[in-house]
């Protein structure tokens, strides 16, 4: 399998006047074309930093990332992201249809945009909601719109940042199955960042387990489950249970001392990430105003 995404020796240190914080350290992994890889790690371990470096929103201090052979410098051409917070990521002043068309305006004419959006919305089961505004839909349906928007963009890589963390359990199952269906039908390459162990095993062809901050890859596990999965039978199968146990053990889940340490680290990491984002915001605001 050819590597769609190649992350090599990636490291990032947040710099500030009163010190430095190492968020990720020597991350190396690849994602093959058509593969669905889940990245799972304790909260605050540097998952979002990893995601932001792949999107080109954060420039890593060390190492490099290539997307189908091209080194990433700035936001890559054919990459789409589904964020956790769908209600803030969607544009409330645009209808569902226009939200999905929004990123296509730069490259496609009106007719082609219409067709692409319709196709993507059909795929996520929202063909009937095209004229509605996002706030008229339930949370799960709004996240479907985000997924449709990303799919209509026809990205080489679909990045998902905790995509199902803000919906209820029932909807979560539905959306997980939707993602698996879409991935099978479209052969999309997907990288899902999550902190949910069960989800990472259920969704992934592979699960990358990250260490505590600074994040590095502790394990790269192949998921030996059938391509077509089922929320009940897959989750009770031996292979699933064994694998989720293995991931949990690697993450030190349920050990009080480890958890306290993780919580403390998460707080520090969150502070740094927020500082960096604020700096980024400023920089981009300037950028947009001066150009």
């Amino acid at each position: 399998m050819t590597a769609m995404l190649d992350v090599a020796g990636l490291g990032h240190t947040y710099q500030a006047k009163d010190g430095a914080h190492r968020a990720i350290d020597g991350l190396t992994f690849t994602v093959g074309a058509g593969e669905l890889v889940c990245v799972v790690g304790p909260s605050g371990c540097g998952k979002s930093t990893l995601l932001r470096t792949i999107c080109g929103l954060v420039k890593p201090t060390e190492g490099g990332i290539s997307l189908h052979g091209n080194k990433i410098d700035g936001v890559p051409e054919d990459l789409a992201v589904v964020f956790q917070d769908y209600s803030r990521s969607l544009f409330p002043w645009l209808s569902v249809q226009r939200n999905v068309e929004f990123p296509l305006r730069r490259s496609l004419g009106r007719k082609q945009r219409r067709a692409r959006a319709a196709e993507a919305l059909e795929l996520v089961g929202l063909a009937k909601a095209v004229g509605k505004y996002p706030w008229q839909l339930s949370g799960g349906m709004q996240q479907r719109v985000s997924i449709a928007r990303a799919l209509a963009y026809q990205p080489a890589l679909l990045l998902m940042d905790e995509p199902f963390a803000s919906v209820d359990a029932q909807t979560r199952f539905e959306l997980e199955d939707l993602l698996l269906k879409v991935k099978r039908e479209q052969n999309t390459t997907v990288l899902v960042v999550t902190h949910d162990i069960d989800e990472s095993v259920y969704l992934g062809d592979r699960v990358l387990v990250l260490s505590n901050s600074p994040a590095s890859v502790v394990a790269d596990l192949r998921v030996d489950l059938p391509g077509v999965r089922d929320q009940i039978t897959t989750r009770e199968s031996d292979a699933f249970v064994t694998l989720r146990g293995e991931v949990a053990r690697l993450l030190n889940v349920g050990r009080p001392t480890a958890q306290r340490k993780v919580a403390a680290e998460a707080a520090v990491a969150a502070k740094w990430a927020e500082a960096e984002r604020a700096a980024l915001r400023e920089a981009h605001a300037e950028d947009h105003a001066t150009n």
Partner: protein
Amino acid sequence: MTKFFKRWIVFAGLVVVWQIATVLADDPFFPPPTEIAEAARELWLSGPPDQLFLTDIVFEHLIPSVSRLMGGWAIAAAIGISLGVALGRSRTALEFAGPLLTFMRSIPPPALVPVFLLLFNVGTSMQLATIVFGVLWPILLNTIDGARSVDTLKYETSAVFRVPKWQWVLGVVLPSAAPKIFAGLRVSLSLSLVLMVVSELVGTDNGIGSQLLVAQREFDFPNMWAGIVLLGVIGYALNTVLLAVEHRVLGWQPKQEHSKPVQLATAGD
């Protein structure tokens, strides 16, 4: 129907009370509403049929006045929104311009009428300058505030999908700022009316304001009151039209977010 009734019952009741009170008082300074209405009809609606019964005064004074009001407001809106978006998206620019803006907006616009009289000739350009300078600030400051508060995630979403700059400004920043911009536009519209009258009080004999002044000087109280009522009607009508436009443009907002209280933004906070 009951809603309409509720909205106007207090207003109508007050007019009736006013009518009774003025008839009883029989004071020349306070003519009864019927007399004012008659004066208004005589002044503006007694023209020839081929002018739709509008008198020459309407064409010579009312329409130019309202055109100046709308023109000044539109120019201020164009400057305020474009400048506001630019300043709102650049912290450096805002830091430089902030104190200047706060200083300029603190100057009461009528105080600048003599300055504009010197700078421009008596007439339309001076009147426009007064209106524009006076009503620019609520639009500008509200736009800055709105443009600054674009959601970070919307920025990141636009960046990740490599949305071009024009689409970012017109498709994300402006709609995000639209509710605040409209709040500014509404405040400015009522201010425009005030400044239209003020700008017509000096150095001109054209416009509703000057007509009002003439009626007052000639002790023609029914005509003066008719002018005052007319200003109220114009203000009400313009505001109604703007609200209708706002409802259309901001129709995407969830219902409970409609008609948030108008808040005037201040620079630098």
